[in-house]
């Protein structure tokens, strides 16, 4: 019997970890809560389906749907990845990963595998529902479906590493809660649910300075072909900006994560446990 090499062991372990994580997450009531948001969005889309936007070029339902997909990616990365990092730091998950050989690498690989699926889970029922509610919103050809999938993966890659960075940098639950609120406020003015041009110029520039706006623009480009959204740049620019965000993010995130992991110790976990016992969060 030959012993498998270290890299193949780590890869298999991470695959197994990802499989178990997904199976356990989506078989508990908390995990099923992920299906709640798409239902709400579908109801909204149902109500605004006949409202027209952008001089009648597109129904509000279509615009909101594209925005929802973009927002779903942001939520999965920020609430998902960075929120999970907070919990994992406090409950000892990260420390446990540190205690097994190559456990930290495996943990990050698991995250890379699980997060895109986490982002996909609330999107699937929304896509199915929207296909039924808004005729013509879904891509009609296989090529456009593939394009949608590619855009989805690109936006996840552009946002996920920054979720990890936020989760590592902000250590206390309170500051982290404020940061989350900030992200949501930013999402509101990032053109997901109404065109950027209705906002004051300052906010418009602020929106363009983060990946959020570009994520929305990318989904609008795939889902609303032929619709001119005022202020949206050509598709090539959008995709290049997203690519830049993912490259920089994937370069920065491991460095920040490693630094955070180095600081993990049993006493940090014990202190977090004390805090949760005393203050409840």
């Amino acid at each position, binding site marked *: 019997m030959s012993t498998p090499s270290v890299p193949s062991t780590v890869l*298999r*372990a991470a695959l197994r970890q990802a499989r178990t994580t997904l199976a356990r997450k989506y078989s508990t009531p908390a995990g099923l809560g992920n299906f709640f948001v798409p239902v709400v969005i579908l109801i909204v889309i149902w109500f605004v389906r006949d409202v027209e936007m952008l001089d009648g070029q597109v129904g509000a339902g279509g615009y909101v749907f594209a925005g929802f997909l973009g927002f779903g990616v942001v939520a999965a990365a920020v609430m998902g990845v960075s929120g999970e990092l907070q919990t994992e730091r406090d409950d000892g998950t990260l420390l446990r990963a540190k205690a097994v050989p190559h456990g930290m690498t495996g943990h990050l690989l698991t995250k890379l595998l699980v997060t895109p699926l986490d982002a996909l889970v609330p999107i699937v029922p929304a896509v199915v529902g929207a296909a039924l509610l808004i005729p013509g919103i879904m891509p009609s050809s296989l090529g456009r479906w593939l394009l949608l999938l590619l855009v989805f993966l690109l936006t996840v890659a552009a946002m996920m590493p920054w979720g990890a960075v936020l989760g590592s940098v902000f250590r206390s639950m309170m500051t982290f809660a404020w940061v989350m609120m900030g992200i949501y406020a930013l999402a509101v003015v990032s053109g997901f649910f109404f065109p950027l041009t209705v906002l004051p110029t300052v906010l418009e520039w602020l929106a363009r300075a983060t990946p959020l706006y570009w994520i929305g623009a990318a989904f609008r480009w795939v889902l609303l072909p032929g619709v001119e959204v005022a202020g949206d740049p050509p598709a090539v620019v959008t995709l290049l900006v997203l690519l830049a965000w993912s490259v920089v993010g994937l370069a920065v995130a491991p460095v920040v994560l490693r630094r955070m992991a180095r600081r993990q110790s049993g006493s940090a*976990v014990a202190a977090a446990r004390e805090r949760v016992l005393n203050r409840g969060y």
Partner: protein
Amino acid sequence: MSYGSTVVLDGVDLEIPRGQVVALLGPNGAGKTTTVEILEGFRRPSDGEVEVLGVDPAHAPEEWRSRVGVVLQSWRDHGTWRVSDLLQVMGSYYVAYGTREVPRPWDTAELLDRVGLADHAGQRIDRLSGGQRRRLDVAVGLVGRPELLFLDEPTTGLDPAGRRDVHDLVADLADLDTTILLTTHDLGEAEKVADRLLILAGGRIVADGSPDELRLQLSRSSEVRLRDLTTGEVSVHAEPDPTAYLTDVLHRRRGEVQVLEVRAASLEDVYLDIVRRAEAGEDLSALTSLEAMTR
């Protein structure tokens, strides 16, 4: 022993033979957890040299991790997973380190049986009792068949039944050929599970030995009380060698001693005294041995 694990601590070389169960005992705040975290490689020492299994833990390669098991006191992770999930996933990281003699990881069913959780394999982790949860943590620590296992305060926060659970488990592991270093502030617990006690006070190891050895060491520093027959005066002497002292004094003062009392300093008293003094904020760094406490 050729497999011996060398632990350097505060300038003190501790040679811990393979398979020994060692308790690091000390009052809260004595530095037990800090010491263990340094040995586990989770914390860098500010100064000095540390070597565990021949490697500096702070810069140890990942391969070293496969030889060391870690059990912490405050793990609350993976609550929604099943008991066997966690062992299988964590175990899968050790596959590359298996050898013909030592297959790694430990088979999940066998390991669960070993730690007494065979009936709970399919249970959600957050539904385990405190003692069962700790058993699972120990199982995860053992899943890679480590040469050295760290147990940090394994019974803190457990009810009496849970404590007993853990004591039984550690006693059960004695034949594993795994060196175990556990920390506790409870002398009774340390005596129950460990072959060897290290008492940590003021950042220094003040005692090192089996419970019996430490008792013997202390019995030599006894308190001798003599009452004079005529004056009724009581004199108290702290004596490192009470037998010699008494032979001498009874011989010299024949017929003068009315009442004689010899009290051996007990390990419990000395330890409680250390704890009390540490809790009162006293600086114990000048303390070098247990006998010093009795004077």
